[in-house]
């Protein structure tokens, strides 16, 4: 199953500007403490980590736990000095993996 991913990065920015990046990914984030209809505990199935790489340099990494709401929505900031590409990667339980990328023009 592929996850739906949305990333929001401004298309243009001034050199040295601090920009906001928003990311949203569809995922159940099953915490591993809930029971199903037949009373069995549903096994944990969460995204454990999200990273953002900008021009091959890691600028942001977040470790997630079962206490993060389903469909993790994460916003953060970064300073941009050159045009380039943001590469986002989510990894999680049961070999979950999703990627996205966004370009920015820095003037």
């Amino acid at each position, binding site marked *: 199953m592929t996850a739906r991913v949305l990333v929001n990065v401004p298309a243009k920015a001034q050199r040295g500007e601090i920009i906001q990046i928003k990311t949203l990914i569809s995922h159940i984030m099953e915490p591993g403490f809930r*029971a199903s209809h037949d009373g069995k505990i549903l096994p944990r199935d969460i995204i454990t980590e999200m990273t953002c790489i900008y021009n091959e340099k890691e600028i942001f990494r977040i470790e997630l736990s*079962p206490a*993060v*709401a*389903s469909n993790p929505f994460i916003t953060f*900031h970064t300073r941009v000095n050159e045009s380039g590409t943001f590469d986002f990667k989510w990894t999680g339980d049961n070999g979950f993996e999703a990627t996205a990328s966004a370009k920015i023009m820095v003037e």
Partner: protein
Amino acid sequence: MMQESTRRELLLGSGVSAAALLLAVHAADATPESLQAAIRNVAGNAEIGKGKVKLDIPPLVENGNTVPISVTVESPMTATDYVKTIYVFNEKNPQPNVVAIHLGPHAGKADVSVRIRLADSQRVVAIAELNDGSFWSTTANVIVTVAACLEGNL
């Protein structure tokens, strides 16, 4: 007159026992001790100062399944003075950890938001680790009307 005061006492008494019952139910979840243990796990024996960190979280939450939080840290975010990591912990979810956020000087400003789950009315703690090895923290109290993720376990 006499009867009224008895009724009042009775009500008061039932209120106290309800509170005791609530306490008994909560004892099964992550405790202040496990919160402390989780904090010591990341901070070691370092002293944790109050301040510098701001935790934005609604004081009254209707739905514990999705609670928007935002953490900001006062820091110039330069190459010599920046926030390395921000940790968020809670008191009464089944596990004390919420998120660990790794930043660097290139972040420009330490301002991150995420949506979390809260199983109960509780304290949420945010701790920032700066590049000089110092720790700063803040605490927020949240009241949750509909709890997250535990419906099957009650």
